[in-house]
């Protein structure tokens, strides 16, 4: 697993080097690689998914502008995470300032603070849709054949490598790879119609 992480970091390093040498398309690869992780991270601070996406985009652009100063003293993703967290915090501060200008009623503010579902100002339709998607995914994983369910759960919940899973399940690594992929495909087949 460590060697795979090192390979991933090495890939980041090569892509960063390419960007620093003027290859803008290399940055697109880094965006593709980390977009979901950065959106997830920003979403912990900013509950509204669309706002979180905007802030995540802003974080990527800030990171691009600062890439000339990136010395490689830390891994690229930790450096990127730090920028994303700072961008999210700055966004929250500026939003709080904007909100204070509207002189929101204190009682209303307390209600909003105590209702996590409303923090992101998500519409009821969106909440219902998201809830439906979550239920569909959970139902899909429960209906998987046991060996596939165990394989993907060991991967997703325990964070085990394919090799570790192969030891735990007493099967070849290739089988683990196949089981995890087929589990994802089975869940995806239930998810895709909901996104259309």
């Amino acid at each position: 697993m460590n060697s795979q992480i090192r390979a991933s970091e090495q890939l980041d390093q090569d892509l960063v080097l390419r960007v620093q040498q003027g290859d803008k398309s290399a940055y697109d690869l880094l965006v593709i690689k980390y977009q979901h992780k950065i959106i997830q991270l920003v979403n912990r601070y900013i509950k509204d998914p669309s706002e979180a996406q905007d802030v995540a985009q802003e974080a990527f652009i800030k990171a691009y502008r600062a890439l000339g100063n990136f010395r490689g003293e830390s891994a690229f993703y930790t450096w990127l995470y730090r920028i994303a967290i700072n961008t999210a915090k700055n966004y929250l501060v500026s939003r709080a300032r904007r909100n204070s200008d509207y002189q929101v009623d204190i009682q209303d503010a307390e209600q909003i603070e105590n209702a996590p579902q409303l923090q992101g100002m998500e519409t009821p339709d969106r909440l219902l849709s998201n809830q439906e998607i979550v239920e569909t995914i959970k139902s899909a994983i429960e209906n998987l054949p046991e060996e596939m369910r165990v394989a993907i759960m060991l991967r997703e919940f325990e964070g085990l490598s394919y090799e570790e899973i192969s030891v735990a399940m007493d099967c070849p690594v290739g089988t683990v790879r196949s089981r995890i992929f087929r589990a994802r495909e089975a869940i995806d087949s239930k998810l895709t119609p909901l996104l259309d």
Partner: protein
Amino acid sequence: MHEDLNQKISQFLDNELDQDEALSILQKIQLQPDLKDKINRYEAISHVLKTDVFLYPSSDFSAKINQQILQEPYYLLPRSHPFTENKLFKHSNKILVVAASIAVVAIITAQGVNYSDNKIKTSSTVQLAQTQAIEQVSKPSAYRYGNEPSSVNARINDYLQAHNSSVYTNGEVNFRPFARVSAYSQE
């Protein structure tokens, strides 16, 4: 349709591809929107399993960033000092710093050795002098110069004789009879 590629994407998400394979699959995802949607759905599934929250990036998420980057003015572009070169530069700097430090330490040590040698010499001289002084003080003054008491007495007698200016005043004017007046020139 893209069964092999989809499996590669699955492996890519689990950090189970080597560097070249990972780069290759990223480049394919970059060029094919359906693969981009696939990786987004896989990531969303993974996130739901861990947090019960569904997050799905818009299909133009990376395109918007790319567009913004293309519009970046020249002065905002990353400067051309790649971190690997900096690393190399830093590495060579470190070697120079270490070499310089070793040289300084060597010089200081060498000087320290010379200084301590001198100090030892000086201190031994002082010690010798002090020992001699103590020995000399502990002896009578006559022994200081390596003389015997009899020879010293003889020297004193000689001295007194040489400096004797006594006169016998036998009834002379202004002198008392047989009075001896002596005067010694003190050295």
